[in-house]
């Protein structure tokens, strides 16, 4: 999505606090997105703490007597009291091993969000670095080509690999671990950021405040990252927000093929992928994580679009 619409990206790309508030107040979808994100972050933090410390919330506790119970079922009398689910109730039902889906969703919230955030941090870092260097040092020669040509050729190389296929190749060949998934998703999605950071740095480079900074003999990195970067940050935030959404989707796709985060760690993607075998017997194993993923991905997309409107006055509604 992002790469398709950022051709508007010139104009005034600095974020202004007042416009952000205005857009949030007027646009119900952006507000919905922010509310959902807030709830999910709370759930993820609470989930990370509770599932690690409280036995009632143990997402890996197997209770074979209570397998495949529908949502809101009470715990059966055979289960010893120390491994009862919270309030003695399976809020989201249980899976084929009698694990409490509510606890698993809580644990999955933090893992899924972590994958999204770390992957996007990596891709934003690489993208900003490549784009800033290419845009700022563009004409400087390095060997036969200019710095700009070198970096953009490298970007082209990455754009030529079919992304999902590349992710799949690397994940399948490397030992499966949650860190490999984050790193691979991050390293295959920085190209869009790099291209428009480069574009805005090329126009910022010619402006007077950059000349002034250069006249003060400030070092290049300081001009780039302290003076120029804040002026190009708007579109970066937009892409980052939408990037989190697509990283969560990519993880669920990998889980579907069996290359996602490995058990016993739960993510929303692998709960959903495991639920597909039981879609007729236990539809809640499929619908609950499915709806959770849709809600979070939608929320990130809405917030991203709201930010896009905030940084680009031409898209704003009259």
């Amino acid at each position, binding site marked *: 999505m992002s790469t398709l619409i950022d051709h508007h990206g010139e104009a005034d790309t600095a974020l202004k606090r007042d416009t952000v508030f205005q857009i949030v107040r007027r646009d119900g979808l952006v507000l919905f997105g922010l509310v959902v994100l807030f709830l999910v972050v709370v759930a993820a933090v609470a989930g990370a703490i509770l599932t690690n410390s409280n036995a009632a919330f143990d997402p890996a506790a197997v209770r074979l007597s209570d397998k495949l119970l529908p949502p809101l079922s009470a715990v059966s009398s055979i289960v010893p009291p120390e491994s009862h689910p919270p309030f003695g109730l399976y809020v989201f039902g249980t899976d084929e091993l009698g694990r409490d889906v509510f606890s698993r969703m809580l644990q999955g919230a933090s893992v899924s969000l972590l994958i999204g955030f770390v992957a996007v941090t990596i891709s934003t870092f690489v993208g900003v670095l490549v784009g800033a260097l290419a845009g700022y040092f563009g004409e400087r020669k390095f060997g036969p080509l200019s710095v700009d040509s070198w970096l953009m050729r490298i970007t082209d190389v990455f754009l030529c690999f079919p992304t999902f*296929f590349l992710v799949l190749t690397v994940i399948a*060949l490397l030992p499966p671990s949650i860190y490999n998934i984050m790193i691979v998703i991050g390293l295959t999605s920085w190209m869009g950021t790099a291209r428009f950071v480069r574009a805005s740095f090329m126009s910022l480079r010619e402006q007077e405040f950059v000349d002034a900074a250069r006249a003060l003999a400030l070092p290049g990195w300081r001009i780039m990252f302290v003076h120029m970067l804040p002026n190009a940050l708007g579109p970066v935030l937009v892409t980052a927000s939408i990037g989190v959404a697509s990283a969560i989707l990519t993880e669920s796709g990998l889980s*579907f093929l069996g290359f996602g985060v490995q058990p016993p760690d739960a993510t929303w993607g692998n709960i959903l992928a495991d639920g*597909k075998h039981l879609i007729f017997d236990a539809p809640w194993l499929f619908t609950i994580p499915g709806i959770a993923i849709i809600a979070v*991905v*939608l929320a990130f997309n809405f917030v991203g*679009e709201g930010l896009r409107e905030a940084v680009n006055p*031409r898209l704003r509604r009259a």
Partner: protein
Amino acid sequence: MLGWAFKNLLSRLALLVVISFISLAAVHLAPGEPSEVDPSNPRIKAEDVAKIREAFHLDEPVYKQYFFWIRDLATGELRSFKDQQPVLPKIWDRFKNSLPLFLLATLLVWTLSFPTGIHAALRRGSRFDRATTIGAYMMISIPGFFLAYVLVILIAGKLGYPVVGMSTFGLENAGGMTRFMDRVWHLTVPALLSAIGGVAVLSRYVRAEMIDVSGTDYVRTARAKGLTEDVVIYRHALRNALLPFVTMFGLLLPGLIGGSVIFEQIFAWPGLGRLGFDAILSRDFPVIITINFFAAVLTLAGTFISDLLYAFADPRIRLGGGS
């Protein structure tokens, strides 16, 4: 123009060599190789592993393997590690299966997104506009396989139409019409699913472009001249709004080979995506590398064609002419 095309093609060729070398090196240097797919099998002894490594040139350094790969690809001698079948016919067979899926999906994307996007832009803020906006966001936010399962349950489960595989087993002697409709049903659902993401993105893009153009000075001038609204929209605004999409015909090419692994897996469709996926699972290096190579060829050809098309469609753009 010709000079530009020649220079551009040369640099793309250089890029292709780099890309294919990187993909070969990455696949070979990553842990895991064909001789280790089944390490727990007691019948495979150390000598057998050595034999396999020698037969596939796995002991040679990477740059030599690259030359072996190029030589075998050029002479058509490149064979799969797994079943010793030549790689090129293998890819071609799967490509013929992926092609109808790609064509139908592309057709759906282009015929659905343009009317939707233009209509939404002309009635900005209307109920239709809001509904398609939310619909588009829903479509890009649903995990593909979730939607696929829901559709399978609806269409195969409730309506009783066949969806999995390329055709129904046992219908080989049925009449031509029955067989044709059977193929159509098998094709429709996976194509629809592949198209949905594209429709969501492209219709939003058309809408944005149309709104952008509607605010320009020449559209205001056209209105001020007293032209009818239809002429303003279809002769002045639309023609300029469509310009960027000409280039997208070129960018479609890579889609030919990036067949969706997930949908082909769900619908048991023997296309290229699954060939690649199976090759990854069995460490079938020649197949992985060759599929990656063709994907890169199509991407580079696609961007080249889109640059050319843009120059033809928009006389303001002159390729390589003095700038």
